[in-house]
Structure formats: C-alpha cells, structure tokens
C-alpha cells in the first residue's frame, strides 16, 4: 500500500489549500489497509496492546534508522527545514504581491512592471529551492526507510534462526509471521510517513505561527482558539470512532474464526448436510459486523468534513474581524496582509490536523516495534561446545591425523585447555545416555532416568504409545533441548562439549513431519549436502526409492516444489526426506517415523535402501510399525517417559510384557 499512501501524500501543501479535505484518505479508515484495516493478524484484534516504555522503543527504532543512515537523516531534516521556509517565503510573496506591487502599480500612470518581475523571479528561486529540497528528502527517505527495514528484517531472520527450538514451541507461528508482515508494516508507515510528516508539520506550524503573529496578533489569537476547538472536537470524535473500530475488530475476529473453522471443515459440513445451519450462524455474525463497521466508518468519515468546516469557520471569523479592522484602518492591517493572513490561517490548521492524524500510526508502530524487539531480545541457543568433527585418516602408526579433504572417516578434535594439547578420537557412533531426566519446563519432567547404551553401528528402536517420550529422546541427542539431569556421551565425549553444528552434522535425521522447501526437487535433496553432485542426488533418490516418482514429475529433478511440497503425497515427501538424509551421509542416523506414511508395500521397497543407509551406522528408529523395528539390536519400550522394557524382539516376546501385548494386539 506504500505507493497509494505516497501518491496522496505527494504535495506537501505548499500553500494553504481551500480544501482541507484533500487530507481525506489519511483519516482513520484511510487506504485499503488503513490503520485498523485488514484482518491480517489475529493478534492485532481486540484492544490495543499496552506499550511499555514508549520512549525507549522509539529511541531504539530510531537507533536502527541512525545505524546506517545518520548522514541521510541529517540531510533530510535540513532539507525539510529549507523546503518549509521556502514555502513560507512563497506565501509571504502573496502579501507583497498585492500590497507592494499591484496596488502601487494601479496608481501609476505608466506602470513599471520591472520590480514585480524581479520579485517573481526571486520567489521562483525560492520555489525552486523548495522543490529540489522536497525531492531530495523524499528521495533520501526511500533509502532510509527501505534500508532500515531491510536491515531490521535480516537481523530478525538471522536472530530467529539462532533461537532454540523451545522458542518455536512456545510461540504461535502466525504470531512470528505477523512480525515480518504487520509489525514491519507499521514501522514502514512510521519511518516513511509519520516522521517526515511530523517534522514538516512541526516546522510549518512554528514558522507560520511566527509569520501570523507578525501580521496580526488579535487574528492569530482567534485562529489559535479555533484550532483548539477543532482539536477538542476531533479528539472526541476520534475516541468515539476508536471504540467503534475496536468493536468492529472484535466482530471481524469472531466472523473470521467462524469462517476459518467452517471452511476448514467444509467437507464435513457437506457430509452432514449442515449448510443451512451454517448460513444461519454466519448471517448473524455478518450482520453484527455490518452494524459495527457502519458505525466505525461513519464516525471516521464525519471527522473530515467537521474539521474542514471548522477551518472554514475560522476563516470567516478572521475575514470578518480582519475586514472590520482593515476598514477602520486603526490596527494597520492592510487588505494585502489580510489576504495573506487568511492563507496562513489555512496553512496553520492543516499541519495541526496532520500531526494528530500521524499519532495513531506512531502508536501502532511503537506496538509493532515492541513485538519485534521482543523477538530480537530472545536469548540465542547457547553453544559452549569446542570439540569439532573433522575429516581424518590413520597414519601408518595408527595415529589419527586431521585432513582437510573428505576421507570418509571422521574424528572428534578435542582441545584440552589446561594442557594446551589436542587429541583426536575416532567418530564411532557410540551413544550413551546416563540417568537422563528431562522436562520442557523445569517443573514438569517428561523423561525420567533414561539409561541407554548404543554401541557403534547398532540399531536402537523406540516403541510405545504417543506421548511416551520417544521423539523427545532423539531431540536430546542432537541437543534441540538440553537435559536437566544426567549425561549424554557421544564417543565418550559429553555432548555439551561438542560444537552444536558438528554434533548435528554427525547425526542425520528424518523427522516425523516432513518439511520441504520452496525450490526444485534436486535442491531439496541437496539440502542434506550442499556440495553433492547431480549424480549424488540421483543416487540418493534411488536409495530412497524416490527416483521412480521423481522421474514422472513434469520436470523431473527440476520440478519446482512449493508450499512445503503441496503437490506431492505425504508418502512421496517422506521418500524425499529420506533421500535428503541419505545424501548427507551422516555417521549416525535418527529416523523418527520416517516411513509412517508410506504403505507397507512401498515400505518394503524402501527397506532395501534403508538397510543400506543404516548399515555400519548407529541408528535410532522410532516407528509404530512392527516390521520397521523388529530387526533392531535393541528395542526400548517406553511408557510415560520411562523405559519399561528393553531387549531384542525375541527377548521381549519371551518376557510377555508390555511389548508382547502391543505386538499381539492383546488388550492392555
């Protein structure tokens, strides 16, 4: 909407226009996405959030502006001052035009137009300066505004990427998104419009006020009084319209909720012949919204003519009073001065109206800024690890030697501070969990005393009911979450000492919810290893049994996937996720329900590839399908955050415990 606002904001009203309604669409309901417009973010509904310490937030926003654009801003302010002064010069000229040039000219026998021409040329220069400076500051503001937003956006994104998983668990995705859209928009509004407008208006008010006082004090007092009345009345109307708008947002929210829920369940609505009933409920909410929208817009619309006519009234009063004064001749007010004064009268009330209109958008921007800064102030994932994963080789003595190039073998590079030595340990894939307790919040543990010992190359399976804590355990191994108590060791190293990036590099993972990215199939597979060749991509796809369907896609490996791979079936997406993990060629693997959406027959086809993928790798498997876990070296049966049984399939069947019951389907 930026351009729409820009267009109508174009003229900085060099001279008082007789039509203050030109400021029209800036009103509370202005523009297609006016301050209260668009039900974009649910959060924006309802009462306005409380802004704590607005001064601090404003300062912080300005510090972002100033970061790179301090010089720009200085020039902008200077330009605004010059342009306002140039405009005032122009207005003053109207006074001189009649009094100093035209009236004397009428009394001359042979009128000499030269002085007038000189004066006009002089004013033309002022006007020229005004135009150039106006252009300059508007032009500079584009860079200030867009540059600041770009930097802020990138900082938000970078910071967001560094946040721990917990942040994403505890914040609604819609709310996070809303910061990038709604909240950034409010800042755009403030930086590009409100701030320059504010400076402009303030300077105009001051300079016009000075000129008016110089022309006629009594008339200035009248004008000031009328401005005061206008502010009072429009303030009343604004608060009235504000409460109506709040009602409208609430009604809109209710209607939105209904639409969202019902359209989401539209197929169920059909199956149950519920259409009529739905329309009934909808109509009721819709009518309510109509009432409040009508009231809100009406008050907002009324504000403009009221302000305009109060302005006109002020004009009439000044004209009549001024007229009387001019005719009586006692106060030294001339006709020319009166005409100029009347123009100033208009130039005076307009910027004041504009300042009050900018107020709303500044408050919105402060609220938006507050939310953005909350994101930026979130603590990043802490990484105190220093052990690195490096490519290595064994020299002839069997010592581990670090290599820069890919060797196919990995080692942990462990630097010991106290002895200033570096030791290397082969990456083998031994994972030990020792007395691990974990809870998403400190006050509620979801895992209790987990003991686990995965030998290198073993396949460890987790089974158990939903919510038993299977996924949680795997999330601890790659440190998506940090444990409260106990120890996790990877090849004998406490994972807290390992750099998070290297730890995660060493663990390939296929998650329960497959997520793909916008981009080609090829790019999505390559996500696992950015340096993989096209051939590697095809091989990985073949391994995951995805090659067949990829080839049938319209553009094969170059088919564009959008919307999280919306054009693929869930099963196909899982196959791609497996290919993505395969290409990373990680030393260890976590498969979290990796094949749950693939039917049994297809799964058998994938199994081959999966077996290849798992061979010689420590693998953690979560599955609810027995065939997937049956051949594991060890099966952990989980219940309510505890490992209740462990052993291989045959052992567990023999035990005739929980696993046996799950397996045979006997009632538990």
């Amino acid at each position: 909407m930026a351009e729409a606002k820009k267009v109508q904001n174009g003229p900085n009203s060099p001279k008082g226009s007789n039509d203050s309604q030109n400021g029209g669409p800036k009103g509370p309901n202005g523009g297609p996405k006016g301050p209260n417009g668009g039900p974009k973010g649910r959060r924006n509904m309802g009462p306005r959030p409380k802004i704590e310490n607005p001064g601090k937030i404003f300062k912080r926003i300005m510090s972002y502006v100033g970061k790179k654009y301090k010089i720009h801003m200085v020039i902008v302010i200077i330009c605004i001052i010059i342009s306002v002064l140039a405009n005032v010069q122009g207005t003053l000229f109207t006074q001189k035009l009649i009094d100093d040039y035209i009236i004397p000219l009428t009394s001359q026998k042979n009128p000499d137009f030269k002085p007038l021409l000189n004066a006009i040329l002089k004013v033309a220069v002022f006007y020229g300066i005004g135009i150039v400076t106006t252009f300059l500051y508007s032009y500079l503001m584009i860079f200030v505004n867009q540059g600041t937003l770009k930097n802020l956006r990138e900082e938000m994104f970078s910071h967001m990427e560094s946040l721990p998983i917990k942040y994403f668990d505890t914040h609604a995705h819609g709310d996070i998104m809303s910061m990038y859209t709604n909240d950034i928009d409010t800042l755009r509004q403030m930086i590009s419009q409100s701030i320059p407008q504010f400076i402009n208006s303030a300077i105009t008010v001051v300079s016009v006020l000075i000129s008016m006082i110089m022309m006629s004090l009594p008339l200035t007092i009248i004008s000031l009084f009328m401005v005061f009345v206008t502010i009072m009345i429009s303030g009343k109307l604004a608060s009235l319209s504000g409460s109506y708008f709040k009602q409208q947002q609430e009604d809109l929210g209710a209607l939105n909720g209904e639409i969202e829920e019902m359209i989401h369940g539209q197929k169920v609505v059909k199956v149950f012949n519920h259409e009529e009933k739905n329309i009934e409920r909808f109509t009721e909410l819709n009518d309510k919204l109509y009432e409040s929208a009508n009231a809100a817009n009406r008050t907002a619309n009324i504000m403009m003519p009221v302000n305009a006519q109060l302005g006109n009234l002020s004009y009439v009063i000044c004209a009549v009073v001024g007229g009387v004064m001019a005719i009586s001749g006692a106060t030294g007010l001339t006709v020319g001065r009166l005409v100029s004064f009347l123009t100033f009268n208009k130039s005076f009330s307009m910027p004041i109206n504009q300042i009050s209109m900018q107020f709303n958008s500044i408050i919105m921007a402060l609220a938006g800024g507050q939310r953005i800064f909350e994101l930026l102030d979130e603590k990043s994932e802490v990484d105190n690890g220093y052990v690195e994963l490096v490519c290595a080789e064994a020299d002839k003595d069997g010592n581990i030697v670090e290599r820069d190039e890919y060797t196919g073998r990995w080692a942990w590079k462990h630097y010991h501070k106290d002895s200033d030595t570096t030791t290397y340990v082969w990456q083998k894939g031994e994972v030990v969990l020792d007395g691990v307790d974990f809870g998403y919040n400190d006050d509620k543990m979801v895992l209790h005393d987990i003991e686990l010992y995965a030998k290198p190359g073993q396949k460890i399976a987790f089974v158990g009911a939903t919510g038993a804590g299977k996924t949680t355990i795997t999330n601890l191994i790659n440190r998506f979450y940090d444990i409260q108590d106990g120890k996790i060791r990877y090849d004998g190293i406490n994972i807290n000492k390992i750099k998070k990036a290297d730890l995660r590099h060493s663990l390939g993972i296929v998650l329960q919810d497959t997520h793909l990215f916008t981009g080609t199939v090829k790019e999505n597979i390559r996500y696992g290893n950015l340096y993989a060749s096209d051939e590697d991509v095809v091989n990985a796809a073949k391994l995951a049994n995805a090659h067949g369907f990829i080839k049938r896609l319209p553009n094969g490996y170059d088919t564009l996937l959008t919307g999280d791979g919306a054009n693929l079936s869930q099963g196909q997406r899982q196959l791609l996720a497996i290919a993505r993990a395969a290409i990373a060629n990680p030393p260890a693997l976590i498969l979290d329900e990796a094949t749950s959406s693939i039917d049994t027959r297809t799964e058998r086809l994938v199994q081959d590839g999966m077996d290849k993928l798992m061979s010689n790798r420590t693998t953690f498997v979560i599955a609810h399908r027995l065939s997937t876990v049956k051949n594991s070296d060890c099966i952990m049966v989980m219940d309510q955050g505890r490992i209740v049984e462990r052993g291989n399939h045959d052992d567990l069947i023999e035990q005739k415990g929980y696993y046996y019951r799950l397996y045979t389907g006997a009632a538990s």
Partner: protein
Amino acid sequence: MSKETRKKGTVGILLSYVKEYKMVSILTPIVMLGEVLMETIIPKIMGMIVNEGVKGGNLTRLYTLGAIMVVAALLSLTFGVLAGSLSAKASAGFAKNLREAAYKNIQTYSFSNIDKYSTAGLVTRLTTDITNIQNAYQMILRMCMRSPAMLIFAMVMSFSISPKIASVYLIAVVILGMILAIIVKFAMKYFTEVFKKYDDLNASVQENVSAIRVVKAYVREDYEKSKFHKAAENVYKLFIKAETAVVLNSPVMTLTVYSCILLISWMGAKMIVGGDLQVGDLSTLLAYCMNILMSLMMLSFIFVMITMSVASARRVAEVITEQADIVNPEDPEMEVMDGSITFENVSFKYKKDADDFVLKDINLSIKSGETIGIIGGTGSAKSSLVNLISRLYDVSEGSVKVGGIDVRGYDLKALRDQVSVVLQNNVLFSGSVYDNLRWGKEDATEEECRKAAELACADEFVSKMPEGYNTKIEQGGSNVSGGQKQRLCIARALIKKPKILILDDSTSAVDTATDQKIRTAFREEIPGTTKLIIAQRIASVQDADRIIVMEDGRIDAFDTHENLLKNNEIYSEVYEEQTNGGGDFDD
C-alpha cells in the same frame, strides 16, 4: 473463470450485490456534489468579501457576505456529514452482501469445488479481500464524484472570473495529468512486482518457522540466512525502484502548483493594473488553482486504489460465480429404499482434463446390511471409491446406484442422510460434545447421543471428562487425542442412523482392542446397516463379510478373508507382513 464472469465482467458481478444499498450508494455522490458546490462557492464568497466588503469599505456588505459564508459552510458540513454516513452505510452493506453471497455459494460447493481452493485462500477472499473492496467502494463513492466535480466546478468558476487565467489552469491540468498517468503506470508495474517478491520473502520466513527443526538438524542456519539475505536484498532494490518512480510525484505536483502561482501573479498583476481583474479575484483564483490540482492528484490516487483492489475483486468474484458441479436433480428421489450399493462400469477422475483415470472399470454389487472391508496401498483409490457412494464426487463414466437408484437421481440431503461417511481427515468443531454429536441429527436427545457414543466406544472417555458430554471441544478438536477424535467422529456419523455407514480409515489411531470392540458393536447393534470399512490393518477388516482389495484404481479381488488368503497375492502378502511383525504400536 465462469461464463457469467466473462459476460458481465468482475465489476458487474460484484455490483449486482449492492442490492438494498443501491439507494444510499446513488445518494452519496449526489450529496457529495452539494458539498463540492458549497466548497467551490466559498472561495468566491471570500473573494467578494475582500472586493466588496473590505475594499469597498462597506461593513454591511461584509457582514452579509460573512453570514452567507457561514451558511455555506454549514450547508457544506451537512452535506459532508450526510455523505460520510451514507457512504459508510453503503460500503459496509455492500461488504456484508458480498460476504454473505460468497459464503452461501461456498456452502453449495461440491468436494471438487472445495479441492480447487485452499482453506487459507478462501478465508482470505472472505475477509481481507472483501475488506479491500469495501474500502475501495467507499473511496469511489466519496471521491469519484467529488474530485472530477471539484475540478470542473473550480474550472468553471475560474473561467467565469477570467478566461485567460483559467486557460493556464487547463494547460497545467493536461500536463500534470499526463505526467501523473505516466508515474502511476510505472509505479503500478513496479509495485505489482515488488509485492509479489515481498510475498515470496514472507513465504520463505513462514517456511523456515515451520521447518526450523530440519534447518537446525542439518545445520543450515547460515545457508538459510544467505538465502534470505539475497531475497531481502532483491526486495529492497525493487522497492527503491518502485518508490523512486512515486517520489517524483511530489516535486512534479509542487512544480506545477508553483508555476501556476507565479504565472497567475504575473498575469493577474497585469490584468488588475489594466482594470480587467479585481484584487480579490486574484486570491480566489489562487485558491481554485489549488482545488483543481489537488483534485487531479486525488484522481490519480483513486485510480491506484481501484487498480489495487481489482485483484481482490477478481478473487471474490471467482468464489461467488464458481458453479457447484454437483447440484440437486430436478424431481429428485426423496427416499433411499435400502443399503444396497452397485457400481456399474464406473470410471472416475478428479479433473476432466486429467490423462489417467483414478478409478477404472469398477463393477461391484454390495447387498444391504453387508459388512465390507476395503484394503489397498496408498494411492490405490480406496477413498475415491467410497466418496462416489454419497455423491461427494460424480462418476466420470458409468453409474453408482444406492438402493437400486442412481445416486444422481436422489435429493442430495436425503442421500447423504442415509449414506453416512466418516472422512479420513475428519474435524470436530468448537462446541460441546453434545453440539458435535448433534451435527448428525439436530434434534437428537441426550439419550440418543449417549447411545451413539457408546456404540463408537466414545462414552468410556467422554463420561470421564470433567463436564462429561457438556465438555467443550476446542476448535479442530485439539483437546482430545487422535483416537478419541476418531471415535467421536464415528459416533457423530452413527447418530444419523444411516442405511449405509462408511468408515474411511477412521480407526487408525484407535488401539487394536477398542477397534475390535467398535466392530463387534456394529455387528450386534446395527446389523441392518451396510458398513464399508477402509483400513490399513488387516485385523480391522478380516471379520468382514467380504473384502475388496484395491490396487492402482482397480479392484484386484473381492472375496472373503479366507478365500483371499488362499487366492490373492497382494492380500496374503500384506497379511503375512502384518501378522509376522506388521502390527501397529499406536495407542
């Protein structure tokens, strides 16, 4: 786009929903005209005040003119307030009608219509898009008459004062108009582009938020950052380009205004000296100058607004004009005789222009009261098959009969009341458990609800809930587990007391034992109902009377469990798989 859209045009279709707000819509610009008239007269009166009152030294005349101006201002105020109220009512009403029309039409959509739109897409059309239209409509009502009228009135008045000076305005208007048109054209082009890129940028944020675990697991934070940086840089450059075009607006406008002022001052001075113009007229002319050029500015703004809401208008019109492709037949059959089902040479595809059929040459005959299991791999078209029975989709070829009559001959409501489907992707709605169950039958007694819940093994957990059947279900059923949700959905379908009950993988999250209990209850309590059960687990279908084995959109076999084990390769393979370590660990 539908035929109707092509014939009437987007705007025409939307305007036909102004309906009862036509009167206020017409009145708004008329009243506006009054306001404009007053505002044009006011500068004229001001000029007269200076000329006749002040210059003429006539106090009486000054007072009279002052009074006239106050009256004019009051009239202007009245017109302004009136126009504001009328336009608010017209636009809010228009939006209400549009929303209602769109929503009502969505209610007529068949499954294939619904498939065309995403849920989020439809919600946006009903909310943001319609709000955009509402704002644009209000703007048009208020400004479309106002700006041209202001321009014309001011022009006429200027001509009446001084044709010579007025012709300067005319030239300025033409030049400025042309420049504005060019700017708007460029700006529109850039802005359409930049908004698209901006949307893409936000989409990538969205993607990162939901896939954060993948990003972190693959340690791709830096990769994502550099991707985002590139996209943000792109958006930045485009914005700069677009806004640079717009930023010319203001200096061009100012330049024109200033030029006019200076030119008029010069010409005016000469004319006043020559006795062709009065002093007061000069300031009046200057005021008109502003009016004229401002109106032009306004027009260009309105134009931008209209252009920008066109996309919204088109999207809304699409929803409103979308023709439901399954409608009630004329003279429909109101009663379903029994629960028998026949498929005769049925072929089906979701889109007319799709190459391959999803279902091909299906022939089936199911007797009333039979229990039929359906099994097959992902994508074997199990769901497609059963969706044809309650006419959620129409066959492409052949015929599906229920109770001996083609489903296309039934009244839709009558058919769907008797053929109850528990969909694979099922939803519960916000409201109590009772409210949800009564979706099946509006006037179901508490007793009936309980009975259905018992049958579906839902009573056992509902009665344990804090408020039992009055417990509030959250939107989307987020406060019950997957298995509980499925059982409630089955209960909801049972309340209809249908002749045919279809469960589309509806017990996948229910544990094996409960699943067994539900099936036993079906057998004992509703023996007369034809039951079709789609399942992944053989255990869920093996005690059915007969089992359909689907493969690639065909029926591979249709027989009893025992026979299939003996004769059908697919079935026996799956059975083998599942019994020897193919069970489920779900709760």
